[in-house]
């Protein structure tokens, strides 16, 4: 079971990093979401993978599942959820204020205008 979880975390992280490096805000938001999913699964596995065990320790238990990573994941999920919501709103604001969804909004616009004016001058 370990290898499949490790594979899932690895693939999600790789996809997340790839998307974060994209030039437009929407893929970046998706990338950050994927990264936070990967982190959550990773935190969860740090308590070691146990199937069908209770999260209770008593002197005579031999196997148990660690409850702390679950609490950490819960906190991380809530925070990541709030941050994603904020980022989406900010991206929309940037889209409406900068006129495009490019991460480097203004300089992109400036370059575009420079290209246009050069074309005009060429005509």
């Amino acid at each position, binding site marked *: 079971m370990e290898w499949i979880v490790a594979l899932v975390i690895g693939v999600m992280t790789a996809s997340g990093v790839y998307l974060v490096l994209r030039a437009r805000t929407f893929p970046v938001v998706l990338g950050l979401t994927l*990264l936070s999913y990967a982190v959550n699964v990773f*935190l969860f596995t*740090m308590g070691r993978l146990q199937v069908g065990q209770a999260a209770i320790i008593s002197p005579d238990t031999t196997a148990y599942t660690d409850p*702390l990573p679950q609490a*950490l994941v819960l906190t991380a999920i809530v925070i*990541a959820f709030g941050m994603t919501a904020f980022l989406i709103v*900010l991206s929309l*604001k940037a889209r409406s204020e900068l006129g495009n969804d490019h991460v480097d909004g*203004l300089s992109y616009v400036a370059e575009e205008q420079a290209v246009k004016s050069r074309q005009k001058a060429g005509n």
Partner: protein
Amino acid sequence: MSSVWPVLPVLLPLIGGIALLFSRLGGLQLQRSVSLLFTAGLIVITLQTLFVATTEGHQVYLLGNWLAPYGIVLVLDQLSALMVLLTAVLSLFALLYAIAQDTDKQGEDFHTLFQIQLFGLNGAFLTGDLFNLFVFFEVLLLASYGLLLHGGGRLRTKGGLHYVVINLVGSSLFLFAVGTLYGVLGTLNMADLAAKMATVSADDQGIVAAAALLLLVVFGIKAAIFPLYLWLPGAYANTSAAVAALFAIMTKVGLYAIIRVHGTLFAEQAGPLAGLHTDLLLWLGMLTLILAVFGVFAARGLKEQAAFLILASVATLLVGIGIDNSAALSASLYYLVHSTLIGGAMFLLADLVARGRGSYADRLRSAPAMSRAILMGSLFLLSAIAIAGVPPLSGFFGKVLILDSAIGHPSQAWIFTIVLLGSLLMMIALARSGSILFYQVSDDGENDGQAFNTRATTVMIALLMLSPVLVVAAGPMTMLTEQIAEQLSDSRAYIDAVLGQAAVRGK
């Protein structure tokens, strides 16, 4: 008996933030009074916490009365007390300036965000738990996103977007690092982590080192260390001046976290892992300093220049931490206090100049003379002297102390060359901006700047005057910072204080 002092500076701004949500009903005037009241109250309380920390040693507060390695603890030592006091002082000036310039009228809930920002900062300075540090980082970041974007504007949105995205990536990395440490060591309490560091098996040392360096990346994003500083100039130069001044402490949070986490975890009790970060910090610090000085030279506006000056101060501090001896740490703390306050003053001055020049704003181009140009020019001269490290103001003493502690270090030639050359180049760049802004007056057109704002200028002067105060009080200040450095070098005392804290017994 569990002490209440670690929890008060965290609770007060939180209560303030909640109270401000309700005082919206009473209008802006009420919000201003409440916000000022809570910030002034914070200074009183943090002065008392500093007094308690220096006289009574480590103070530990068990949240929920759970014993240390299992529950979350807040720990007050002299370093956190100093940082909390510094935050409170800087925030009072930032708040006064925001009120004087009506920054809080440009959007809603400025004061609430401001108090929650202080809540996050103080929490980050006082927590003794790694995951709790992450949570407080998120609190202070979310508040800082709000403050950074407060008032709106295209450039602000763009700079803010970059800031938010890189910090969200940083949060993910933080969780990866925290998870790895928990997976190997089974604890997140910093004292317990430090105690267990000696028992790490040879097989696990690599993975612990990886987690530690991942944490260094995260704190490096906050502190703006090369190559992770590119977000800073855009974010700081485009936000409102009061917020930029408050954010002078934000980069220091990253540095504090490095001193606290890496300094405690990888002190000598860590065995082979001890001091794995110091050389790296030294070289990254020098590299950051070089690039920051280039930035100071290349800046097109005074605000951008101030942002690069903040970066240069962070770099100097990194060099101080990287030298890794008690005297260097003490000197760095003195320089930290100085650079935070004067960096904040520099942003306020840049804003005053930009407003005075009207449509020319803070761009480094000659413009029609602004009103009260002589006063402004003198203030610029004083700020430049303080921040570039020329005698007789506090920057000079900070740098001398840092360089003094570098004598005998294997790379002392590099440290001296880069720090001194950096100071010289910063001075030249600042002299150039000063002469463009204040001497090269162009005659075409009338000055269309805002009228002279007495209250805002008074706030700026008061903040700047803390630099001579730091010089006059250099004796007691260095005594305090030496005491802090001594306390930090004894990580055993920290571990014992946290893990030995008894719970409060019920009746």
